[in-house]
């Protein structure tokens, strides 16, 4: 397979196109077992992936499946089907292309199993489901190629781990299967290649021309950015001006709440009514589809969005990307910038808007990193065991299996190559018996071994296993609807915990509107519209990213420059003042400032460990202070520091920060932590300990099934080393708790702690006093709070 067949060449010629070098490279080497293409957005990546399939099928038409294409987004699968139809029809190829996702109607899915198309476009979840049917060998018979799109994104989540396990099984069914990965620019292509390829097969890496350097700069506004906070509201006039001057602008925010607030104020200022929409993961699906359709039709001049637009759909005419708030992560920034200007060889245009004074420094550091093409990223950790448990159950649903064979399949995936046999056996034991120290279920094992083959004890369990396949676990969300709008469109969704914190009369933002909370009715949040200008409660949680280790290091380096010619004057002056009054934080030392202010004693720890780790550090330090009788009252954490306040001064911060004491306190603290319970629920759902539809989820009407928190508490007490508890600890450590970065910090500074006892607040600490998201210290306070609230309620009702 090498040259482009004449009818393909004709088609390219008719369109006035020439084939890109990386597209012909892919075609030439299409017989290698594994290929990874790294190409910027708009580089004809998808066609490069499919061209070998189209050519092979044109040469030798066959029945049955030839190629499976996997994308992380359902919408992408449908999009690709439309895009592929053009060359297939115009060249006149006898190729059937269909997509199969959770949205595909049942009858079509059933037909696809009986009579598969040549090219099937699907998602990791739908593939896992197909593989769990006993007729999987027949469905996949003759399969030649599998194309994994956006593999850089999949590789960052459990969806990727599940997909790679599915590929290992697919490879066993179709030994000649060739793997193709399509990726955006990443920091370590080798790592992705090793993730994709069957071990120990080699994987060829092809790099498309990355195109010219992006045209990227920081927005300099009339008013300097505020001292603290996020959102970038101060820049709205300048942003509107930019939207006016461009065809289509994407305005990225780091959180949904910030996107909502910005969008609301953008419209208040949008006097000429420029068509601007909003898109994020909390909006109702109908709303999102409407915005996507308007975008595709070129009706929108701007879209305020979040990570929900990071992937996929080609919006065509975007000519400017604005990033509001520091990008936190250089790789994501580069990928976002790539969304602008999809014409190959034209530079992408992007503008960074720092949301506060510190972010000016952060944006500047990110600009340097982009220019130096220095991408950041954390090394991948080994494949998680909860996903493996699900894979074992899915395999059992398809039919009996041999443990040795399955183990060798699993370890042929890069992510699980280092999985030990005892670890595998523990997962198998979990799937079979529950894996408890107390062997209680001998008669009712889920999997039993008959004639050396593992299989379901009760074949009816297969349906339940299929229902639970997939690694996407949504937090419980409630739909938000206008009151009395019987069956009207929902405005969006909010997390249950947010809804629970509302009392009637509270106002908040959703879908760019201010609404008033009226009450909860049958699992729906009922609201009414309000004409207020300011919502009372603005924040509902969404993903919060911590500044990457590499970017933090770059910021520290920048702070320690002798002067700052690239920074705006106001920011440089601020840093100079810090140097005079206190000192600059350094990478190899830990700066701790203490100062009194208005009857409170403050301690500021400049760890530069990212928001999640600084938050954890705040919880640990305040717990130690409570034990030392220093009466801490609360703290606030940002990506670079934790500021703690209390009734007594901290005179010896070195003592508080001693490594092994912190670690000890951490163990105890961690076990009772709400983050652990949330993490446990996710892993328990993925591993099949609990059903997606029962424990943890409420049924309407009857008494609820019990919460997964109870299972966590029970295991903690009676079986603390159970597999699910091990997995939970692992996940929490790298996720929200991010203790790894605290460890990294402690290793970096060792005992080099600089304590500066100041008489006044320092310039770097001052903005922290204005930060929102303060965490009160929960000591005896929680009980007191409940008591006070109960008494207030009784008094209000005129009782006692």
């Amino acid at each position, binding site marked *: 397979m090498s040259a482009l067949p004449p009818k393909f060449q004709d088609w390219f010629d008719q369109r006035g196109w020439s084939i890109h070098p990386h597209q012909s490279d892919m075609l030439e080497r299409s017989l290698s077992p594994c290929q990874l293409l790294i190409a910027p957005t708009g580089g004809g990546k998808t066609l490069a992936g499919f061209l070998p399939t189209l050519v092979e099928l044109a040469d030798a038409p066959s029945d049955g499946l030839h190629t499976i294409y996997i994308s992380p987004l359902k919408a992408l699968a449908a999009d690709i089907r439309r895009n592929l139809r053009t060359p297939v029809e115009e060249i006149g190829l006898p190729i059937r292309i269909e997509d199969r996702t959770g949205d595909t109607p049942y009858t079509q899915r059933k037909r696809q199993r009986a009579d598969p198309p040549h090219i099937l476009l699907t998602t990791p979840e739908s593939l896992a489901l197909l593989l769990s049917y006993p007729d999987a060998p027949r469905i996949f018979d003759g399969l030649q190629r599998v194309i994994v799109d956006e593999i850089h994104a999949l590789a960052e989540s459990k969806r990727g781990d599940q997909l790679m396990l599915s590929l290992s099984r697919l490879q066993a069914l179709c030994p000649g299967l060739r793997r193709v990965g399509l990726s955006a620019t990443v920091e370590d292509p080798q790592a992705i290649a090793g993730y994709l390829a069957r071990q120990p097969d080699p994987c060829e890496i092809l790099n498309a021309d990355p195109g010219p350097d992006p045209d990227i700069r920081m927005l300099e506004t009339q008013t300097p950015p505020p001292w603290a906070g996020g959102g970038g509201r101060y820049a709205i006039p300048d942003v509107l001006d930019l939207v006016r001057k461009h065809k289509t602008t994407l305005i990225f925010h780091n959180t949904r709440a910030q996107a909502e607030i910005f969008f609301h104020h953008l419209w208040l200022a949008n006097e000429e009514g420029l068509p601007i929409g909003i898109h994020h993961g909390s909006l109702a699906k109908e709303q999102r589809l409407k915005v996507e359709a308007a975008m595709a039709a070129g009706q929108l001049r701007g879209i305020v969005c979040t990570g929900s637009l990071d992937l996929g759909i080609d919006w065509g005419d975007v000519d400017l990307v604005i990033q509001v708030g520091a990008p936190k992560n250089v790789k994501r920034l580069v990928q976002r910038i790539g969304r602008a200007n999809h014409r190959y060889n034209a530079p992408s245009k992007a503008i960074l808007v720092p949301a506060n004074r510190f972010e000016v420094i952060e944006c500047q550091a990110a600009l340097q990193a982009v220019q130096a093409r220095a991408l950041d990223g954390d090394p991948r950790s080994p494949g998680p065991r909860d996903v493996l448990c699900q894979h074992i159950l899915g395999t059992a649903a398809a039919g009996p299996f041999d443990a040795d064979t399955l183990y060798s399949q699993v370890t042929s995936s890069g992510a699980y190559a280092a999985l030990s046999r005892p670890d595998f056996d523990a997962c198998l034991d979990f799937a079979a*018996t*529950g894996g*408890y120290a*107390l062997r*209680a*279920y001998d008669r*009712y094992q*889920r999997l039993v071994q008959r004639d050396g083959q593992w299989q379901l*004890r*009760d074949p*009816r*369990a297969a349906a*339940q296993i299929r229902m639970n396949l997939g690694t996407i676990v949504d937090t419980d969300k409630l739909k938000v609807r206008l009151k009395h709008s019987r069956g009207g469109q929902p405005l969006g969704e909010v997390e249950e915990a947010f809804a*629970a*914190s509302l009392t009637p009369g509270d106002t908040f933002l959703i879908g760019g509107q201010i609404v008033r909370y009226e009450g*909860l009715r049958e699992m729906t949040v009922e609201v009414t519209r309000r004409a207020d200008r300011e919502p009372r409660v603005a924040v509902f949680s969404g993903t919060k990213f911590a500044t990457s280790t590499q970017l933090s290091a770059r910021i520290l380096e920048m702070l320690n420059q002798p002067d700052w010619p690239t920074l705006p004057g106001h920011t440089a002056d601020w840093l100079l003042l810090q140097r005079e009054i206190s000192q600059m934080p350094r990478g190899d030392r830990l700066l701790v400032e203490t100062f009194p202010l208005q009857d409170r004693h403050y301690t500021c720890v400049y760890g530069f460990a990212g928001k999640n780790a600084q938050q954890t550090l705040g919880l640990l330090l305040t717990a130690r202070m409570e034990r030392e009788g220093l009466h801490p009252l609360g703290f606030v954490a940002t990506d670079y520091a934790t500021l703690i306040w209390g009734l007594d001064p901290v005179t010896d911060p070195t003592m508080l920060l001693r490594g092994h004491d912190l670690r000890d306190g951490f163990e105890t603290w961690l076990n009772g932590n709400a983050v652990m319970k949330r993490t446990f629920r996710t892993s328990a759902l993925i591993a*099949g*300990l*609990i*059903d997606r539809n*029962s*424990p943890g989820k*409420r049924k309407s*009407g*009857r*008494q*609820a*099934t*019990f*919460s997964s928190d*109870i*299972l966590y508490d*029970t*295991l903690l*007490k*009676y*079986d603390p080393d*159970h597999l699910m508890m091990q997995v939970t600890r692992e996940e929490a450590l790298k996720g929200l708790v991010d203790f790894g970065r605290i460890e990294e910090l402690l290793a970096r500074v060792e005992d080099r702690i600089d304590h500066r006892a100041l008489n006044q607040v320092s310039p770097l600490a001052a903005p922290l006093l204005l930060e929102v998201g303060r965490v009160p210290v929960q000591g005896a306070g*929680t*009980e007191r*709070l*409940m*008591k006070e*609230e*109960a008494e207030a*309620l*009784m008094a209000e*009702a005129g*009782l006692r």
Partner: protein
Amino acid sequence: MTGHRFTFSGAQLFACPSGALWWPDQQLLCVSDLHFGKADRYARKSRGLLPPYEVRETLTRLEEDIQTMNARQVICLGDSWDDLEAAERLPDDEKLWLTRLMAGRNWIWIEGNHDPGPIELAGTHRSELQVGPLTFRHIAEDAAVGEVSGHYHPKARLANRSQPVFLVDDTRLILPAYGTYTGGLRSTHPALSSLMGPEALAFVTGKTVHPIPMPR
């Protein structure tokens, strides 16, 4: 005694933080909806393999309450077993534990919808029981007076935490579920708000008991 003291139909009662009801004059402890053997039933019905420790966890708490109060009478107010088979299949050590708790006490099993029939364990089996001014039965009945029941697993939210609650008005008292693997029904649900009178209170369990107007 950290419970909440209240008067119901002329009886002086305590709502314990654990969710048990204590009647000092009768030295009577009442617990509802223990759901012993839930994990076992899940496994039997191929609904999943839950941590098999719920019976001992429930027994641990029950033993603590019985000993703290030095109870002479114990009423299990129905749904003590997740199903009748679960009662038969209780492991020997847990059966022994339960038998030890029952020894020397007047122990009454009230039938519930999950356990509608006699079990082989000792104690008295009743569909309902009258003690002084109070009637103990599993499911609340229309127009009942002085009725103590369970069944609904009532819960309510206070200071942002959802907790099991006692519900009480002039004529009825509904106990929270005592079993470890039990969920709850919010007091705002029509089934509960239509059952309880307008003046009803909720006693929120937890570290201590907090009385509040019943959330509707």
